[in-house]
């Protein structure tokens, strides 16, 4: 993806990470929900649609920070998910579901300025899963 979704802002003492336009597929899995990133191979599980979105965004930001702290970069973490994983989820009838999320994470000042996270994340989920969640109210 060339990391076009990733942006960094820095001031004198801290780095603020932001990510834009990351696509995520969401599907129902039994009593739970599953979210799989596309441009970044990261996934999360949650007890509800909102829960899985929150856990995905939170876990992704924390993972990026953790990789920066451990390795000084995110090259190993920011990898595209395998195409067969996308297809597997899309075969369930995925349709676009957009969501804007903001997560700001502060980093130690000694970290490099090649940082990341997100201004918005776009979620995709199967229509059937969305309608079931809507019916739950």
């Amino acid at each position, binding site marked *: 993806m060339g990391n076009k979704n990733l942006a960094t802002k820095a001031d004198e003492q801290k780095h603020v990470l932001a990510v834009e336009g990351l696509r995520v597929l969401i599907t129902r899995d039994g009593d739970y929900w599953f979210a799989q990133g596309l441009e970044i191979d990261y996934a999360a*599980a949650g007890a509800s649609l909102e829960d899985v979105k929150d*856990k995905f965004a939170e876990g992704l930001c924390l993972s990026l920070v953790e990789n920066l702290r451990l*390795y000084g970069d995110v090259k190993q973490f920011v990898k595209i998910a395998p195409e067969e994983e996308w297809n597997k989820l899309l075969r369930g009838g995925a349709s676009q579901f957009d969501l804007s999320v903001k997560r700001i994470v502060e980093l130690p000042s000694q970290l490099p300025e090649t940082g990341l996270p997100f201004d918005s994340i776009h979620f995709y989920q199967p229509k059937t899963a969305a309608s079931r969640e809507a019916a739950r109210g």
Partner: protein
Amino acid sequence: VKLPEDDEDGALPRDQVLQVLELSQVTVVRLDDRFVLMKDRVSEMQIFPDKIPRQMVRYLARKFGINPLHFYYPRQLMH
């Protein structure tokens, strides 16, 4: 993956998943409700629900190079 008969949707207790990760040389560090998972150069943070659904189990297996069957039959790793 053949699932246990008492768990048709394939969701597993979080502790069982964490145990298999550790038995598979994944370093698991708990920070309140968050878990840092590390193996070789792969490192990520997870906020797991009490039970881990099937697709998440498969993702963890793929990400950390573990046979998915080991999560459902952890005794295979203990022998």
